[in-house]
């Protein structure tokens, strides 16, 4: 338990030290809201709403604002956790070789991810309110923002432990987050509202935030689906980490000694 607490403390500190990613959030998120908001008119667009199966007619401008928040968080949080996992892999390996439990370390990273993303999702929601004053259910919009941050944060963690190339990691995160969140928006997008989009990681988050923005329905099933994506990515990350930090077989300890 002591190891876990120590690991949580330093994992949090590591995330908050990533000033570049935090700076990106501060500058990029408002700019992204503004830019996408300006170029998208408020005409009604059809949106396939998963929880009820209905085709909602929603304000295109506001829907794009929600997607801008989701997209910005997915990209920046994915980058943030990829960068830290990639950079600290050798150090984490050294820690586990020295006796720190691998599950403790991964769980500490997951907790740090949960806390960091919760705060940054709240920040993104607050900025959204400057552009759209009255979403129906702010908690649900925040849940949508938080869930996409968790999913892409865990995905970044996974890639950081898997890939040796930093450039490849950044490229994959940018491409996937753009395609994933971009395809969910039914503006100038022939693939929108199609059933296959349910298989995409950000589908649940888009449904949640849309439910919060335009309806009084709670999209519980979509929240659950998002959590499944998050836990799935986290388990894969744990598997990769366990494999990469395993002690090699030619070494045998003949007796336990003093610590």
């Amino acid at each position, binding site marked *: 338990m002591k190891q876990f607490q*120590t690991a949580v403390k330093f994992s949090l500190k*590591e995330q908050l030290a990533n000033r570049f990613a935090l700076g990106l959030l501060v500058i990029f998120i408002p700019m992204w809201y503004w830019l996408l908001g300006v170029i998208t008119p408020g005409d009604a667009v059809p949106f396939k709403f998963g929880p009820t199966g209905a085709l909602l007619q929603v304000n295109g401008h506001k829907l794009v604002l929600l997607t801008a928040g989701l997209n910005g968080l997915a990209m920046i949080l994915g980058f943030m956790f990829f960068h830290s996992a990639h950079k600290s892999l050798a150090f984490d390996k*050294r820690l586990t*070789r020295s006796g720190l439990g691998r599950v403790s370390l991964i769980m500490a990273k997951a907790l740090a991810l949960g806390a960091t993303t919760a705060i940054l999702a709240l920040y993104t929601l607050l900025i959204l309110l400057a552009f759209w004053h009255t979403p129906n259910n702010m908690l649900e919009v925040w849940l949508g923002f938080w869930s996409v941050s968790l999913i892409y944060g865990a995905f970044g963690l996974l890639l950081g432990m898997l890939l040796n190339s930093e450039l490849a990691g950044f490229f994959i995160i940018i491409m996937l987050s753009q395609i994933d969140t971009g395809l969910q928006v039914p503006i100038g997008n022939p693939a929108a509202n199609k059933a296959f989009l349910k298989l995409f990681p950000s589908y649940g988050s888009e449904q949640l935030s849309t439910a919060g923005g335009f309806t009084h329905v709670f999209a519980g099933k979509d929240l659950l689906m998002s959590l499944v994506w998050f836990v799935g990515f986290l388990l894969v990350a744990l598997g990769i980490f366990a494999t990469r930090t395993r002690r090699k077989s*030619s*070494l045998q300890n003949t007796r336990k000694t003093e*610590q």
Partner: protein
Amino acid sequence: MSKVVKYNRMQLLSAEKIQKNYHKNHVLRGVSFAVEPGTLVGIVGENGSGKSTLLKILAGELAADNGMVQVAGSIGYCPQEPVVNETLTVGEHLAYFKSAYKLPRAEYAEHLLDMLHFRKYKDEKAGNLSGGTRQKLNLTLALMHEPSVLLLDEPYQGFDWETYLRFWDVVEELKKSGKAIVVISHLIFEQKKFDHILHLQNGNVHEAKA
């Protein structure tokens, strides 16, 4: 594939017929040696002779293709490139590894801060440290749990002369307390400090000084 080695109670570390190939390059062709308590062994060799590969195998960082390593007790491995976290301070590193090693106190780490003369950097982030100070931290993290076997890869790289001398004071202390120490280096200046010097050449070790 591993072979059974008869373990000698007087040895803290034994390597038996270690082999390692990288594709068709036979880096290690059956390296065998043992280190007794209170003994300092130097392993020298040209660049690319397989010194770091051998040390990684001894530390369990890398698997041998064949052969066996036996260690009595805990290992302290100091890699050639400092493995530290740039966002954490020196003091936070010590706290983190104290927790990892499950130490009640970090007394020896505190002692090393003084011995290696870098206590004044305790609140400094590792990312802001000079190469030499990062190496001091790297070494401290390997030694702070007072392991029975120390595997040090170019440990004094980047040290100034005074720190270099202090490093040997630390090694002398460790020898007196019965540790088995292996230092690898491409150049060994002070041969008299070593109990044995092994020359790694063509994938095998030869005793250069007994």
